[in-house]
């Protein structure tokens, strides 16, 4: 194994710009639907890639539908860990207890390692990390999980990572303070500044190659 100098990841569903391999993105906003739309567009795998999603609030079928709603057959390239429902296919792994971050972390690492046996390129994401923060008693375990099982995979492999936070959620602490802390450990941030019938405005920071503002129709 070696740290790869790999090709950038395209995000055609949002912009023509590309994101460098190894980039970790903190995706924030108060509109959960808009966060979800942007999240799955960032996670949409191309032919030689796999998507790995830790879904805290959705079952496997919902995640499958979210991918296929972007492009038919996209879910065929996805590995799904769901904290809300059973495993209905080989591509879906059920997480019994969201607050058991030891088991969740080990399962997540295993899925990433297995996916890399097939193709080294992957897009990994958590939707929603704010739900994990809200569920656990001690936020330090979330930090340990992100450090041990999420950010490391991106540093070691040929991947793109997205960690979604609903800033309107009750996470048992100061949301702005937690986001400020997380932001320093992630490569950059995409914030959903505005979303409505006429379009969605994304403000980006710290991500090489992306414009500071992206206007898109989701």
């Amino acid at each position: 194994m070696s740290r790869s100098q790999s090709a950038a990841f395209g995000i055609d569903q949002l912009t023509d710009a590309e994101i460098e391999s190894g980039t970790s993105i903190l995706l924030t906003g108060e509109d959960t639907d808009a966060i979800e739309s942007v999240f799955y567009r960032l996670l949409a795998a191309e032919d030689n890639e796999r998507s790995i999603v830790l879904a805290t609030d959705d079952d496997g079928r919902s995640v499958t539908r979210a991918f296929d709603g972007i492009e038919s057959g996209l879910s065929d390239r996805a590995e799904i860990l769901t904290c809300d429902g059973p495993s209905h296919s080989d591509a879906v792994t059920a997480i019994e207890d969201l607050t058991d971050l030891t088991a969740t972390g080990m399962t997540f690492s295993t899925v990433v390692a297995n996916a890399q046996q097939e193709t080294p390129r992957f897009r990994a994401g958590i939707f929603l990390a704010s739900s994990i923060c809200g569920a656990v008693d001690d936020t330090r375990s979330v930090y340990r999980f992100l450090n041990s099982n999420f950010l490391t995979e991106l540093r070691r492999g040929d991947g793109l990572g997205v960690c979604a936070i609903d800033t309107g959620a009750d996470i048992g602490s100061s949301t702005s303070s937690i986001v400020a802390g997380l932001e320093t450990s992630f490569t950059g941030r995409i914030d959903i500044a505005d979303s409505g019938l006429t379009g969605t405005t994304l403000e980006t920071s710290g991500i090489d190659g992306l414009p500071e503002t992206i206007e898109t129709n989701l």
Partner: protein
Amino acid sequence: MLIVDEDEASDISTAVEAESGLTTVDADTVKGATEALKNDSFDCIVTRYELTDGTGMDLVNTVRSEAPQTPVVLFTDVPPSEIDTASFEDLIVEYLNSDLPDAHDRLGFIVDDVISHSVQVGFMAPENEEGRLEALSSYDIEELPIEESFSRLSDLIASHFDASVSFIGLIEEKQENFLACTGADWDSLTREKTICTHSMLQEDVMVVEDVREDSRFSENDTLENLGIRSYAGANMTTPDGHVIGQVCVLDDKPRGYDADERAELEQFAETVMEILELRDTLQTAQKPEAEA
């Protein structure tokens, strides 16, 4: 590095030594590994899951209690679904399936990575942590005559805010060292047990009005035992922008700080940095004379 394996310690040792160049110590039981932990500190621990007197998770439990920031890699062919985590829900470990075709290559790489990046800590580190630590080490703290100045300043800060405790602390890689402390007798704290390691990530003053109501700190026994109920911290920022420490006030009751008070705390932090810079500059200027 500590390797805990009943049967194949030599295989694991070979794999990690080849990649990391570290010396390994072998143990074959939870008890043996626990004894080793009492006698030595380790950069990393690699353990199997199934051991004769317990499991690798039992060992992780001990490590998290004795040396919480030491990374542990669980190297096993037991799938995650068969690992009993019910009693260890927040003992995050690095898991690697030893049945993977490239498992030993991965293990060496992972061990090197977890040591280089302190990956299993319960806090988020700044992306430029390496540069920050270099900036901190550029100050010869032990040699600078700052103790009395900082003690006086710490006394003034506590008095000004009518706080039960105030301190000036430097945030090292694994711990916070207190240069001055009024109202308590603290030398250092493990980094993930401090509020400062969170505060340093914010540009402005961080206030925690009630630690019992904040999930980042409410389960932190150290804070509870120290009687810390509220917190306000301002960054000590070097001229090139690295946050190397904090100037803080604590209280044993819930408390807020208004905008003026936050601004004043920032001014105290700036004053601390000015003293540190001046002392450091003076010492550097005097060195050639003394040597001559």
